[in-house]
């Protein structure tokens, strides 16, 4: 539990620090948002997990001896 707490606190600390990083030459408007990558990381990860698991259940995953 304590490990998790340290992890989360350091994440938040990092997040707070990174809010003050000046943006450089950007190509898209969303790159100006300081927390865009944070949100993209979390949402992207969840979308990938749920999306692939759903596809897997739909038709991709078969029993281990499917081809035998």
């Amino acid at each position, binding site marked *: 539990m304590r490990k998790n707490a340290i992890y*989360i606190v350091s*994440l938040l600390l*990092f*997040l707070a620090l*990174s809010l003050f*990083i*000046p*943006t*450089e030459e*950007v*190509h*898209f408007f969303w*790159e100006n948002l300081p*927390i865009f*990558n*944070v*949100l*993209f*990381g*979390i*949402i*992207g*990860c*969840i*979308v*990938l*997990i749920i*999306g*692939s*698991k759903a*596809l*897997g259940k739909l*038709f*991709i*995953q*078969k*029993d*281990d001896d*499917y*081809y035998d």
Partner: protein
Amino acid sequence: MIEVIHPAFIFIFGALIFPLFRQRKVKQFLQLFIPAVAFIDLLYMTEGTYWIYRFMTYELILGRVDKLSMCFAYGFVIITFLGMVYALHVREDVQHMVALIYAGGTLGVTFAGDLFTLFAFWEVMAIFSVFLIWTRQSSKSLGAGFRYLMVHLFGGASLLAGIAIHVSHTGSILFTNMEFGTLGSNLILLGFLINAATPPLHAWLSDAYPEATVTGIVFLSAFTTKCAVYVLLRGFPGLELLVWMGAIMALYGIIYAILENDIRRLLAYHIISQVGYMLCGIGLGTELSMNGATAHALTNILNKSILLMAAGGIIEVTGRRKLTELQGRNLYTKMAICFFLYMTGAFSISGVPLFNGFISKLMVVYAAGEVHRPIIHLLLHLASIGTFMCLALKLPYNTWFGKAPKETKLEEIEAKEPPFNMLLAMAMAAFLCIFTGIYPKVLYDILPYPVTFKPYTLYSVATTLQLLLFTAFAFFLFVDKMRSELTISIDTDWFYRKGAIVFIELALNFGNARTAIQNKTTGIIESVIRSSKNPIQTLEALFLQRKTPSGPYDANTYRQAIGVGVMFFLILFALLCFVFFVY
């Protein structure tokens, strides 16, 4: 100037003299000496065209040396050396020989200046690589090897057809930037894309590589796909089709990797995903993106080989290859060095700052931003998340740590660190990954175009860390969902694996139908023969329902009394008389 030899022939000649030596120490020395000689040879090569031979009315160019080909050649020779260090403990000579010839074929393609030479070495690669799969000597690897070979021979045939059409149209066999859209160049592109493992033509990779030998997969993953990236860079830079194929490919590999249970198949899907970045870079066609594609190929050769070497180490010492068989066994306590070296590769491939993957991946992604391709940019970002999640979190978590589902019985696994030479090879590759990550100038100097790109800015490092750290956060929220399941994933090889069964069943049914028809026809013909031998018997059987004994024809059975004939004659005579006398 020192006369240099074509490096492909150093490897091929080296492979041929390999079995002449008997002492194991000499053989091990040769394993390292041959790639080392080739590396020194490369250092002495200067730009230009060499080894030109006349063949009929054409000129074969075996050595086109420029920055692009040199760059890939360095990568291939270095990985041959590392792969050989990794395979030092293997006693089967044939594995080393085919690996060396395979490396020779790859270098031959890299330096080929014309299409005929390219094709010849292309086929050398296809044929010799399959032995790295077959030498595993299991029934699964035999089948997978055959499927691999069939796909590659199809690709080779397509390439040859394309070359023939291209040459007859343009009259030139030079291998340069090709015009997209003609039949010849389309067929050539198809051949290239099969080797680059572009969906839907990729299934050979995830099917065959996991069945290869523990040491062979290192060569396989480094050569075939990266060589295809090279020829695409040379032949089809700036092709719009490749941008989309690359972006889709990058995500396709991730989706399958998330579902995958076999560690080496999971890594194989990541080869597909990483090649997606390279294809994207080729397709974007700017100097930065092409540099990025080249750099990513080089860094990927190194970091992917660490991952496969670590996976091979696990298979070598535990004999298990599925995450469901490994999770919860707490292997970390027994294989810590292997774990740390694996993580170097994993951080590198997922583009963590200070590792070489950070630079090359950022180049491609940044290039997509530079030419303002928002969808491609986001798709590649998403694939980065997936790479980090699968390779730096899912695979190591389930392999070395993790909890098994409660109901499974945990038997103890015999595990220790893999042999020293395996660890050494991984450590050398890990060193190169970190070294080129911290000091990228080495990499920049050999890239085909001048580099002005600066990866280490506060902004790019911070945003990359944001992306990856919060991906990890989301992963640990879903850690139970990411536990592996004992399943396999069907892929486009389903069409020919199941298709072959259907085809064989159809063929068998067709054969059975043919036999049935033949039997029926023979029966009819036989009865016709029987009845024409004795029509009376047949007629009697038909009309009088009289069963005549079957058997050989006996004329007496059917002979009538002589009086019947006389009677018929008299009746006829009477009729004649009647006609004659009345009229």
